Each structure stands twice: as structure tokens, then as C-alpha cells.
């Protein structure tokens, strides 16, 4: 699979993540509109019960491996904002992996915080690519964050892919919250 195919594949994954995220949000809203919507939401969300953290782990792992491919194999050097997004995404692999293995739903708040921060950074990075003036007036000869390495389908760039991953992780954590009882912090024995 050459680089052109790989980046096309990553772009398709991002679009699939977008579709899944939108579907989850729509179902969540539909669940509040009446019994039919609530029933549909329960059927879909219920089908994912027990898998939410695993799926979020898969998303984080895919995003991490994808970013490593782009930098270590395709030689696309990460800019500063790419590194900020990596700081948010890479730990999610470990956190979500362990939490999924242990079925520890208390991880939600920690994972959501990291994913939320990452999503904000990715969104701003994507905006800088669309509106370079946000990042200053010059493309540095190093690795400017305002320049996209590639753009597919007219709007899918690397930060967009990262944003798609972070949003899907947040959506899956939301399903986990809907499906799981509210976790209580462990208290030491008296």
C-alpha cells in the first residue's frame, strides 16, 4: 500500500468516524424526543454495552499508529501543534486500554478531559490551515503549522483526522456514561 493509498485510507477512516459520531449524537438527541427514539437509542447503545471503552481504545490506537506512520514512515515532520495533539492522544491508548481490560468506567472523566483538550487543539490547528493568518504571516522554512501536508476531499487534513478521532472517543465515552452506572470513587476501609 503506497503512501497515496494510506493517506486516502486515513481520510476515509476520518469520514467514517465523523459518520459514527454524528450518528451517536443524533441517537442521543432522538432518545429524548419520545418513546420510539428512546427505544432506538437503547437498542443501539445497548448493543455497544461493554464495548465502549474497547472501541475508544481502538480509535486512540489507530490514531496513534497513523500519526507514527505519517512521521516515521512517510517522513512528514510534525509541527508544534501536531505534537500538542499527540500529547493528548498517545496517553489515551494506555488509559483506555487498561480501563477496557479492567472494565473500569471511572476512567471516563480522565479520558474525556484529554480527548476534549485534544479536540480543541486539533480544531484550532485545522482553522490555522484554513486561515493561515491565525498562525502569523509566514510559512517558516521548518515545519509551519499553517501549511497542510495534504488535503483530501477538499477539507480532510491531518489535524482534521485527529479531530475526528478525538470527537469519536468523546462520543464513545458518552455512550459508556449512558450505559454504565455512575462509578463511585473507591474509599479506603475505615
Amino acid at each position, binding site marked *: 500500500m503506497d503512501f497515496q493509498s494510506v493517506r486516502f*485510507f486515513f481520510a476515509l477512516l476520518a469520514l467514517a468516524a465523523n459518520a459514527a459520531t454524528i450518528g451517536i449524537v443524533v441517537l442521543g438527541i432522538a432518545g429524548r424526543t419520545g418513546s420510539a427514539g428512546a427505544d432506538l437509542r437503547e437498542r443501539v447503545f445497548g448493543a455497544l454495552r461493554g464495548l465502549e471503552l474497547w472501541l475508544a481504545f481502538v480509535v486512540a490506537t489507530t490514531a496513534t499508529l497513523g500519526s507514527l506512520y505519517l512521521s516515521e514512515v512517510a517522513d512528514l515532520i510534525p509541527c508544534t501543534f501536531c505534537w500538542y495533539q499527540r500529547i493528548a492522544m498517545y496517553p489515551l491508548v494506555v488509559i483506555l486500554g487498561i480501563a477496557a481490560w479492567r*472494565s473500569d468506567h471511572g476512567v471516563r472523566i480522565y479520558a474525556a478531559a484529554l480527548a476534549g483538550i485534544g479536540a480543541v487543539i486539533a480544531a484550532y490547528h485545522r482553522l490555522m490551515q484554513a486561515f493561515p493568518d491565525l498562525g502569523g504571516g509566514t510559512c517558516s522554512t521548518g515545519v509551519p503549522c499553517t501549511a497542510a501536508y495534504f488535503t483530501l476531499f477538499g477539507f480532510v487534513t491531518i489535524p482534521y483526522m485527529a479531530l475526528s478521532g478525538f470527537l469519536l472517543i468523546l462520543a464513545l465515552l458518552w455512550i459508556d456514561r449512558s450505559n454504565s452506572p455512575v462509578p463511585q470513587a473507591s474509599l479506603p476501609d475505615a
Partner: protein
Amino acid sequence: MAASTKNKPKSSDTSRSIPIIGIVVGIIVVLAVIAIVFAGNTEPGNEYGDPQVSGQLSLMPPDTRVDTTANSEVSPTVIGQDFDGNEVRIENDGRAKAIVLLAHWCGFCQNEVPTVQAWLDSGGGVEGVDMYSIATAMDSNRDNFPPSAWFDREGWTVPVIRDDSNNSVHTAYGSGGFPFWVFVNSDGTVAFRLAGATTIDELELIMSELT
């Protein structure tokens, strides 16, 4: 006893998880096949030239927009080819010059080119100052490639020299950030250098003050 945060999956969850995992894997496989089939087999291309460069300006300080460190240095002589193979020469010929180095993937360059071209199309430019451009930092893996198509699309009329794979021309002028302007007096010495987007008013003022 503290409430447990664990919610171990029941055996019925296992039977439900298998088709879901299968669906996810299936989607990934389908997307991979689509990518392989439809991504195309675009070979990495290049539009490098083979410019001859003599002379070297001092390095442009990083994070500097307007630089005067190279003032009075003799501007390099560059003899190269445009995208049609025609020879283009930038040399000390007794005329002032405004040289802009452009990277096709740079958003600021993508904004600058049509702005400058519109100015030129409406009768802009400064008498006695010749304009040249250098297509440099070319990368087929990056946006807006090939630069020749970009210039054609924008109707770019400023003579272009194609840089080589080592970006020798860019290095000779001091490796400034893009778009990188080098303004040269008529005696062949550098007036000053400017890294980054500029306005037409600024450009016109600078060019009109070249001696």
C-alpha cells in the same frame, strides 16, 4: 464497602460483541480496499530545475519579518529555467529587482500570488523594477502540487525560475520564510529582505524606494 467501579461484561455481552467487532473490522477492510482501488498510483513527481547559482547572502534570521543584515551584500546571480524550459536570468544588469521565493504548499504564498497578479494586471508594478519569482521547496506529497499548474491557474506572469531538489536558490538568498521577498538595488546590492505575507501598498512603497 465501597461501590465497585467495575462492570464486568456478562456472557450475553460476549455473544453481542462478536458481530459488532466483526462489523468494525469489516468496515475497516472495506475502507482499505476502497483506498487501494481508488487512491490512484500517482508517482512522486517533481518539477525541479537545474539553476546555476553564484553568490550567497547571509542567513535570514529566524522569526524575522524585515531583515537588514544582508543590506549592501551583492545579490546572487541565478540562471535557470521556467516551467516551459525557457532560460531566466537574474543578474546584475543595472536594474532594480524584486524577487519573490514561493512555496506551492504555503497558504500565504497561495494568497500572495493572485493578489500580486491582480495588481500587475491592473497596471501595477514600479517602473525600473523588474520582478522575478522562484518556485522552491517543491514537494509532491504536499498541497497544491505541481507548482506549474498553480501558476497557470493564477495566470502568473512574473518570470519563474525552478529551484533544484536542494533548494539551492532559496539557500543562496538566505533561506527566509515564505513568501520570501528579496529587494535588490540597481547596483546589484540587497536593499533588504522580507519574510511573510505583504500588502500591495507595502510592496509598491518598497519597490518605489529602490535606488
